[in-house]
């Protein structure tokens, strides 16, 4: 089926260019267009009739079309390539008879020759075209692109979401004082992200990685006049720097360790690792350092704190950058350098490793955090963190395809949800679900429907997109054979499986809460107009927002419709065996198409990853778990709280401590939350303390805060304590890790003040004395 469609499209493509591979070799045009658009908007945007938006939209549209054509060319390429790899019979089986054998041989030979000509001895399934940038000290610096299933998929996702976000933004930030600037940075971001996903060497990856970070910084701080926004931008940037150190160290380690050393080429590094030519120690170091990079960029526990704050940026930015594309850069990087993790973390046959565990903790930790948020965007932000946790976990347990597939589906439904929340916020001029929303279903029925579709997809309800990808991750953890895992999974990660299940229940539950608070119940807004997304006042008056909120315009709604459609359908590109089997003419049908086209299985630069076949029992249990989570939240919010609020005749915000006083499960859940937070608190406290200085100070600080906190806990109800600690954590991380001087030194003991004289020279004296003593000790040790 897929292949028939592909063949159809390919023939169209080839008639245009005479050669579909042209698109694969010239994919560098795709990032180039938005880059040019950035420059154009910056210089001429203000003078254009639509203030530069049209340049951005045109560039991204063309990129999108090129990305689709590249994708189609890739499908063709991938089908042809099987022949060379596995021999004729099998090739025809997988390529669904779409190509005649002679064509295929000629086609493949061409690529093999091209690769060999560029010094590669192996026929790669990926199409790499690079050119030498400079050569120095015997090291080649290449600039080039690498097109394979993964990058083609990312090209599609980035350009697609970016295009929709561009259209959406013309309405959403319309009339903003830095409208042109906003579009310039959207273009630059798109260019950087495309550059990142196309890079064929780790040097380019680092450049792309930093570029998207800069764009994220600029866009989070778009309304920098308000202090919290610029603080959030700084926090995002600085937190990411922490992980960037890991990225640099990891990449440098790979540069020296892999392939006899001194190559930046991703494929060569991967190949060297797969062939076992790299020392295990180096791989462990590299994998651990790169995990730190993933933790910051992809918002994994414990460096996740910047992502919820990043919601200070405009909503389209949150959808594009902090949900669908940039934050998955970490996941993409792991997927790209997968052999390093596969070998370095010994994923196969194991049952625990760093990456998977970080992911698993993030799934549940962020899922819980999503419960205590009142800001709709923060619910979605923590949800994003949690879903990124799924991806990291999937990569950690060896489920490469499942992780990438989840990345793919998540991009659509999370962008859908973010844009939906933006649509609501646009109407009520606030993001606070408890204060300003409620009952929005009546005012915005269209947004409501799309938001519910997104929520269902996120919660993993059959047969929406999230169901297929989440299920695949759970199956491939290989945990718990009881549920019919067939054992072909790479390892047996029972703990991660359980965390994934809990995460599924949590996801369903917090999305139910979010939908209830936003769209059901009584409308609680209208009392105050928070002008917090940058509208001019005249325009607000024109909107007439003091009256009832109203449905958004078409430029906001159409992107939502499109994304909703994708949220429903996109899961079907990777159906597990057993669904929609193909016909005789088309044996593969829709089954595992994604796996076939995206995973470079059998290539010399990719490890032999196992795939578990999904089982009915697991799918049913996972669905039941999600439904149970949703059901619990539904019962509590839709039925109980609704009734309570009607009885008391009060808005639900005014009902005191509803959940913990009325429901024993809820109290247990909240106690769990509280305890988790104390752990977190202690942890960040120690880190901040050590960063600042001596242990005594850190101990003192923990003493004050934790004991204080415990006293508070005894005094107040669990909910309040939970909220309090939540605020403390986020603030502790901001103040502790970023602005650490203020809070930590305030809380520090008086006895250490003498050292802290504020005079640089005293610090220098201590530093030199310390260096002298250490060097002395070292010298004496060596001399003896």
């Amino acid at each position: 089926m897929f292949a028939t469609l592909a063949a159809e499209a390919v023939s169209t493509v080839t008639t245009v260019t005479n050669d579909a591979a042209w698109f694969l070799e010239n994919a560098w045009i795709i990032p180039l267009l938005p880059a040019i658009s950035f420059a154009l908007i910056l210089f001429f945007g203000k003078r254009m009739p639509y203030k530069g938006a049209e340049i951005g939209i045109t560039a991204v549209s063309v990129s999108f079309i090129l990305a689709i054509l590249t994708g189609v060319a890739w499908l063709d390429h991938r089908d042809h390539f099987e022949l060379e790899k596995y021999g004729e019979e099998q090739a025809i089986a997988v390529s669904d008879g779409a190509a005649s054998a002679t064509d295929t041989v000629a086609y493949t030979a061409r690529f093999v020759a091209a690769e060999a000509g560029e010094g590669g001895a192996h026929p790669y399934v990926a199409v790499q075209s690079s050119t030498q940038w400079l050569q120095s000290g015997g090291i080649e610096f290449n600039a080039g692109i690498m097109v394979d299933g993964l990058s083609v998929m990312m090209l599609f996702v980035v350009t697609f979401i970016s295009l929709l976000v561009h259209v959406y933004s013309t309405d959403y930030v319309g009339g903003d004082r830095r409208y042109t600037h906003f579009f310039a940075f959207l273009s630059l971001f798109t260019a950087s992200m495309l550059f990142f996903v196309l890079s064929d060497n780790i040097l380019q990856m680092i450049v792309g990685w930093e570029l998207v970070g800069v764009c994220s910084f600029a866009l989070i701080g778009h309304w920098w006049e308000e202090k919290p926004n610029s603080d959030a931008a700084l926090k995002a940037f600085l937190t990411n720097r922490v992980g960037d150190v890991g990225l640099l160290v990891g990449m440098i380690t790979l540069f020296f360790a892999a392939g006899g050393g001194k190559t930046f080429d991703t494929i060569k590094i991967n190949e060297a690792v797969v062939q076992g030519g790299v020392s295990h120690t180096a791989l462990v170091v590299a994998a651990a350092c790169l995990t730190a990079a993933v933790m910051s960029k992809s918002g994994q526990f414990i460096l996740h704190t910047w992502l919820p704050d990043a919601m200070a940026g405009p909503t389209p930015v949150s959808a594009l950058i902090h949900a669908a594309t940039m934050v998955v850069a970490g996941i993409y990087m792991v997927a790209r350098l997968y052999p390093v993790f596969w070998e370095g973390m010994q994923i196969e046959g194991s049952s625990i490793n760093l990456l998977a565990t970080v992911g698993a903790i993030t799934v549940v930790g962020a899922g819980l955090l999503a419960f205590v948020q009142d800001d709709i965007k923060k619910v979605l932000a923590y949800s994003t963190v949690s879903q990124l946790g799924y991806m990291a976990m999937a990569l950690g347990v060896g489920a490469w395809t499942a992780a990438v597939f989840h990345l793919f589906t998540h991009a659509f439904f999370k962008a859908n949800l973010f844009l939906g929340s933006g649509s609501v916020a646009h109407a009520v001029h606030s993001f606070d679900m408890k204060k300003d929303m409620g009952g929005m279903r009546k005012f915005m029925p269209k947004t409501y429907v799309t938001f519910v579709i997104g929520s269902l997809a996120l919660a993993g309800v059959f047969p929406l997109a999230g169901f297929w990808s989440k299920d695949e991750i759970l199956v491939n953890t290989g945990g718990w054979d009881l549920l019919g895992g067939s054992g072909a999974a790479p390892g047996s990660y029972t703990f991660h499986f359980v965390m994934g299940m809990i995460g599924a229940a949590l996801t369903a539950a917090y999305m139910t809460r979010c939908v209830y608070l936003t769209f059901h119940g009584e409308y609680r807004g209208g009392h105050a107009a928070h002008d917090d997304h940058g509208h001019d006042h005249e325009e607000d008056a024109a909107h007439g927002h003091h009256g009832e909120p109203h449905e958004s315009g078409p430029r906001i709604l159409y992107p939502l419709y499109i994304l909703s459609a994708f949220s429903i359908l996109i899961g079907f590109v990777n159906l597990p065996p057993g669904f929609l089997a193909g016909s005789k003419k088309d044996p593969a049908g829709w089954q595992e198409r994604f796996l076939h086209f995206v995973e470079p299985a059998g290539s010399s630069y990719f490890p032999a990853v196992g795939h578990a076949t999904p089982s009915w029992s697991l799918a049913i249990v996972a669905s039941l778990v999600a439904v149970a989570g949703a059901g619990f939240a539904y019962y509590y919010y839709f039925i109980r709280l609704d009734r309570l609020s009607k009885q008391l005749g009060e808005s639900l915000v005014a009902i005191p401590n509803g959940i913990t006083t009325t429901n024993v499960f809820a109290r247990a859940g909240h106690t769990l939350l509280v305890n988790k937070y104390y752990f977190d608190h202690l942890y960040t406290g120690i880190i901040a303390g050590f960063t600042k200085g001596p242990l005594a100070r850190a101990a003192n600080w923990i003493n004050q805060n934790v004991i204080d906190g415990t006293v508070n806990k005894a005094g107040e109800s669990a909910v309040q304590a939970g909220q309090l600690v939540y605020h403390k954590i986020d603030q502790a991380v901001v103040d502790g890790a970023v602005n650490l001087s203020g809070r930590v030194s305030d809380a520090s003991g008086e006895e250490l003040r003498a050292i802290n004289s504020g005079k640089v020279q005293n610090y220098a004296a201590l530093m030199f004395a310390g260096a002298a003593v250490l060097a002395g000790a070292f010298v004496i040790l060596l001399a003896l």
Partner: protein
Amino acid sequence: MLLNQFLLLAAVLFCIGVYGVLVRKNGMLVLMSVELILNAVNINLVAFGTLTDDVGGAVFALFTIAVAAAEVGIGLAIVLLMYRNRRSIDLSEADLLKG
């Protein structure tokens, strides 16, 4: 000639520089002391370069000179800014970080 002649001379210059950095209250004089430290390092670089017959030592000494020039530029800019804001370049008065 002994290698140690040069290295010990560099060490002496370095320590005098450190002393100057620690003891001077005038920002300009601290910068000058930093120059002493950098020059001591340069002597080491060139000495080892000559010892191993490697031109790298001299090359990196050149880089250090370039970096030192940049450092003086920035350092003086900071001192000027400090002077403009406080009418004094006395470092012992700059203790806003006092805990």
